[in-house]
């Protein structure tokens, strides 16, 4: 199978990214997006139905403390609870966010990112935020990921720059020597401990042309 051959080739060349998809027909999909809103609560507010822009990122993070959900998108940061729906969370940069992650071992610690923003950190559940951009050559962060088990290690994708990593919770960022996926329009990054890495894991990148899996050491 071609894909398996590609996988082996990719492993030989550290730094390669593998398109995490097979080349075959698209599966059938739900045809009626409006069906979900039929009979549903009012969708007014920050999550009103809208077109997703060509270069937008949308990120979700599950808060294990209470089962709520955080969403970062072009309109800002929001928390969803079953009894209250989506509620806006104030951040110093209230629009154009691209990423949000929560430390699952300490859910009051969370990070948010955005183009023209860089990265923010909160240690009080989102009540206050501070900028943590030391070492980033630009603020154009389009994706943010938390390491699977190292809670002070995070990754960002900087448009036109590549992947940067912090191993101290955002005190300093350094460039990772990896050219990134072939499609550099990265909308999200996700860390994985999938076997095969020479370090502590790999990264998935979501892009307009598919999901890519790194073969580098993260």
């Amino acid at each position, binding site marked *: 199978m071609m894909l398996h051959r590609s996988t082996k080739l990719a492993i030989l060349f550290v730094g390669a990214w593998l398109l995490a998809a*097979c080349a075959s027909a*698209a599966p059938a999909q739900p045809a009626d997006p409006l069906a979900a809103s039929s009979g549903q609560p009012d969708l007014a507010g920050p999550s009103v*139905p809208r077109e997703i822009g060509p270069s937008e990122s949308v990120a979700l993070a599950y808060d294990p403390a209470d089962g709520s959900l955080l969403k970062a998108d072009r309109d800002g940061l929001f928390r969803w609870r079953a009894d209250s729906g989506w509620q806006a969370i104030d951040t110093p940069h209230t629009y154009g966010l691209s990423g949000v992650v929560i430390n699952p071992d300490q859910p009051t610690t969370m990070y948010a990112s955005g183009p023209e923003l860089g990265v923010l950190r909160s240690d009080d559940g989102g009540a206050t935020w501070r900028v943590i951009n030391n070492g980033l050559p630009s603020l154009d962060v389009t994706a943010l990921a938390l390491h699977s088990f190292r809670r002070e290690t995070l990754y960002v994708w900087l448009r036109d720059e590549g992947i940067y990593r912090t191993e101290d919770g955002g005190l300093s960022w350094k460039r990772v020597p990896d050219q990134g996926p072939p499609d550099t329009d990265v*909308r999200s990054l996700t860390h994985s401990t999938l076997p095969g890495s020479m370090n502590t894991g790999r990264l998935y990148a979501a892009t307009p042309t598919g999901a890519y899996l790194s073969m580098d050491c993260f």
Partner: protein
Amino acid sequence: MGSLPTHSMIRSVAVDPLNPQRVYAAGPAGLFRSDDGGLTWETANDGLKGEPLAVTLDPASPQTVVAVLTDGSVWRSADGATTWPAVEAGK
């Protein structure tokens, strides 16, 4: 086993931290699940009505998968995206 649509936009990827072979991907073409780290994919849309915007999971209980659709509605699967029983809320 199916696959991700070739050259299809993917907006969001989630990985099961207890079983990193299991990966979820969401995009305009639907929600997909892989059990081999992304080599092959199957659709995971059973009961999910609408276009997925993003997907995540409960890191402590990774069978709990949550998707948000483009209409803002929130969907929760308790069985690793095998079934999506009902929309929880959208507001």
